[in-house]
Structure formats: C-alpha cells, structure tokens
C-alpha cells in the first residue's frame, strides 16, 4: 500500500476512460469540476460535459431529464450538496421514477478536513440508503473506484457513489468488483470487522495491531451498502460471534445500521458501531480530524479490544 490516490481522482480518470468507450455517458457538475475531478472528463469530451453553475437542485433535475433521453448522466458535486441540499430532487426527480442517473458525490466524510463541519457530509449514506431502489456504493480505493464507475454505467437505475477528498492507500491486490458482493480482505475468527471507504485501510491496519495481541480479526470490505451482501454479513457474524462496523459517517443510518438490519433477529452476536457519534465534524488537517473522531487504525484497534 505504498501509493496514495484520492477516490475522487480515480473517479475523474475513470470517467475520462469510460467516456471513450461509451458515448451515452454525459457528466454534469455544479461549479466544482476541479474538486470533483470531472474536469478530467470535460477536457476530453467538452461536448458531453455540462456545468450548470452553483445550482444543485437544477443539477439533479437536469440529470434526471437527460437520463430520459437515453443518456447516462454522471452527476457530481460535493456530497453535502448533492445528497444533502438536493436530497428531495434526488428522491423525487431521480429515484421515484427510477431514472438512470449516477450520483457521484465527492468530499464525503470528516476527512474533508479544513473546510469544516459545514462541508463534511456524515449523513449522506443514511439519506441515500433510505430511498427505495437506490444503489449505494462506497469504494475503498482508487482501483475499486474505477471498477465501480464502469459497473454503474452497465447497471440500469439510480445509484449513489460516495467519494473522498483525501489521498488514500491503494491496495496491492486487485479484487473482483461486483455490485452487492462484499469482499473478504482478511479472514479471522474472533471478530468480524465490516468497513467501507477510507475506513477499510484503517480496519486492515487495526487487524494487524490486534493480531500482534493475539486477536484474530476478519476484515470485510462492504463497498455496496445497498443492496448489502446479506449472506456474507450473516456468515461472518455467525462465524466470529462479534461484529464491529467502521465508517467515516454518522453511526446513525449508514453501514453500521445496514449491517445491523441484516443481523437483527437472525444472528445472535456482539455488535458495535464505530463512526462519528451523532455530532458534527470540524476544521483541521484530515488526519487530525480523523483522530479527533476515533477513526484511525490504533484507535479502532483499541475500541475493538475494549469491546470484545
């Protein structure tokens, strides 16, 4: 895991690559194309790139309309504005008619850093997951982001792709990516750790720390929050008897609740959610902010150890 690439950068690269293969792909942005990295697509395909200005409600509505014309709109802005401000447009203009719009939102989570709590979306997974028919994906690294973008172009219907600002580790392995299919990155028997996005790398590091202390932790990358891989979640909860979920999101409504929904009434196990504990984020360097909220590998290992 030497190299570090932000998932938003991988998204920009993947879009440019996808654009060359599929002429139905169009990209829309709301004056953040340099930050969301859609500018990479705009440079190569200026005629298929639409900057609607600082107007997120309109961004989502125009994407909905374009999808009805046989196009595949990739609609991007920051998670706060795409999933937050334009929530009802996503719900009613896109998801209610099940239109084929790919909502790819960057700068999610507290790792946004310096911009502070107003810009750190820690509710977007909850907001998107609750919408009927919405696919929700959180890639863990650059490779997975690329695969997710290509998979989204192939599937029909609305989808939310959660992307990060911070450069994050790229895994050495090249695991297969299938929407709705979790990847077991590390097997274990004492505790099952389900993670997504930036927290997958931290969970893997945490597992190494735990291993040194004689605790065997399985780490499962749940890149698809919805539809979640119920079989895998149930299998590992059963097998390990203790479950921890780790996400850079509120502990309310995100990965933790998605995993809990699978297990409630079906698998008896210990259960603990690690995430942002019902509070807003704040400014700071991204690594400092992550530490402030207990989302670094040593802290995660500590929380798991205390909870076992």
């Amino acid at each position, binding site marked *: 895991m030497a190299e570090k690439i932000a998932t938003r950068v991988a998204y920009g690269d993947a879009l440019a690559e996808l654009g060359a293969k599929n002429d139905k792909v169009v990209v829309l942005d709301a004056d953040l194309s340099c930050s969301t990295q859609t500018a990479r697509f705009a440079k190569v395909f200026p005629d298929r790139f639409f900057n609607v200005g600082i107007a997120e409600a309109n961004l989502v509505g125009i994407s909905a309309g374009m999808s009805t014309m046989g196009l595949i709109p990739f609609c991007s802005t920051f998670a706060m504005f795409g999933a937050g401000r334009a929530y009802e*447009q996503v719900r*009613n*203009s896109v998801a209610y008619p099940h239109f084929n719009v790919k909502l790819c939102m960057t700068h999610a989570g507290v790792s946004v850093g310096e911009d502070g709590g107003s810009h750190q979306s820690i509710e977007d997974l909850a907001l998107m997951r609750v919408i009927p028919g919405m696919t929700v994906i959180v890639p863990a690294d650059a490779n997975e982001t690329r695969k997710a973008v290509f998979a989204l172009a192939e599937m029909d219907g609305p989808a939310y792709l959660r992307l990060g600002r911070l450069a994050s580790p790229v895994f050495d392995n090249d695991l297969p990516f299938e929407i709705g299919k979790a990847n077991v990155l590390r097997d274990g028997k004492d505790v099952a750790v389900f993670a997504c996005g930036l927290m997958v790398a931290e969970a893997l590091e945490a597992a190494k720390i735990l291993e040194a202390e004689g605790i065997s932790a399985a780490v499962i990358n749940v890149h698809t929050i919805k539809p979640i891989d119920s079989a895998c979640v149930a299998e590992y909860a059963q097998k390990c008897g203790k479950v921890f979920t780790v996400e850079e999101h509120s502990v309310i409504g995100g990965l933790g609740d998605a995993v809990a929904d699978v297990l409630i009434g079906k698998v008896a196990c210990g259960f603990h959610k690690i995430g942002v504990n019902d509070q807003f984020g704040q400014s700071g360097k991204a690594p400092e902010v992550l530490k402030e909220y207990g989302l670094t590998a040593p802290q995660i290992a500590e929380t798991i150890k205390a909870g076992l």
Partner: protein
Amino acid sequence: MTTQDLTKFCTQVRRDIINMTADAESGHPGGSLSAVELMSAAFCTQMRVNPKNPHDPDRDRFVLSKGHACPCYYAVLGELGFFPKEEFHTFRQLHSMLQGHPDAKKVPGVDASTGSLGQGMSIAVGMALGAKSQGKDTKVFAMCGDGESQEGQIWEAFMAAAHYKLDNLTVLFDNNGLQIDGSNDQVMSLGDLAAKLRAFGLDVIELSDGNNIEAVVRALETPATAGKPRCILGHTVKGKGVSFMENQAGWHGKAPNEEQRRQALAELEGK
C-alpha cells in the same frame, strides 16, 4: 384539429376533470381547469406523440411541472387514447396508475414524475439539453404555474435553458394568479412576470386570455426564435368554466361534491 374540434376537446377535458376529482372526492380542480387550453393545444396541435407507442424514443416530451394539475393531464392523455378512459374512475385510488401526482413509471404518456413543485422545469431542461446534445429534433413542452414559481429551482431552470440556448423548449406558463393560501400578490408577489421571464432570457409571448384556444394555438404556431427558449405566458382563470370555482383559491385542492358535480357538468354541457 379545427378550432371547433379543439373547443369540444377542451370542454370534454373539463368534464373529465370534474368527474375525476368528484369520483375521487379529492384532487385539484382549480389549477387543472385553468391549464386546459394551454395543455390541450400543445398536445393536439404541436406535439409529435403516438398514443399507441408512448415510449417512442423520437417522440416530443411533456412535463407537467405543476403536477397537481394532473386531472387535466390525465384527461388529455385519456382523450387522446394513451390509456382507456375507464382509468379515470380510479384516479387517486389504491393501485391506480393515476396517482395523485404524475408517476412516469405508471402512466403511458407521462415522461417525468412531478408534483413536488419547481422540479419539473429542471427535468424538462435536461430533456431539451439531452436532445440537443445528441442532435435530435425532439421538442419539449413544460407547464409551470405561478405559485410554483416562488420556488427558486424554477429560476435555476430558466437560467440554464437560456444559457444552453434551448430553442427546443416551450414553457407553458399557467398564470392563474391564485395559490392555496390566497392570491400570489397576498402570499408572495411575483411582480412583473413577463419582465422577469424576459430578464432570464426567455422569448415571451404574453396572452391576456390564456383560456382563449385560438390565441393559444396562434402563440404556439409562432416560430421559435433561434437560440432562445420560449414561454407562452398565459393569464388564465383558476377554475375556468365552472362559475362557482372561477377565481376562487378555495378550489385549489378541493373536490366537488355530488351536487357541485351536477351543477358543474350542467354548466359545461351548455358550452
């Protein structure tokens, strides 16, 4: 269609609106009745649609941004044969295709799900932009209301329509002047609508009587200005055609009872 045929069509649409809302004991007759001529004229004289092939990719598109006026929309589509008119009786009932607000998944001829005000115009802009970007000659017609235009998103959409030079987009502006809580001027004045629309880059044709079918057809036949979205700004009467509903904000979202249905139909019969 001749003017006489169109007049007959509009009267039938009004009957359907009254019957639909009376049957359902629910719905929005006022803003449906004001919209009749603008919508009927667009469908009957302008739009390239085939009721037998409602999903033809090369069809023209219609978006009812003021989605609560769907009794008018359903009546027009039903009269044109997009679905059997028997469906009218199921309006707003469980398992009906005719939901309380238009559902694109359920109704043949409905191109967007609308009703949450302000959103339809952006969808229409996306359709027009999607057509243009693919070199298609699709025309998009989108109806909005005055009350709805208190939503900021409407103006985001107009701004984008002008920016992208969408001369394949026609905005049908049903300006009946009333909203749920009273007149626009009481609730939140829209000021000089024509001036605002022009300032946002739309080519505006203003009709002092937006319920005059001949005037509406003439406006729709006026060639579009190249590079500009156009707007037929029709000053209409909420509840038009039913004496006790005309210009009454109270008939925004209230269905006629049986006695009121009889009276309304009798008045429409005379036309």
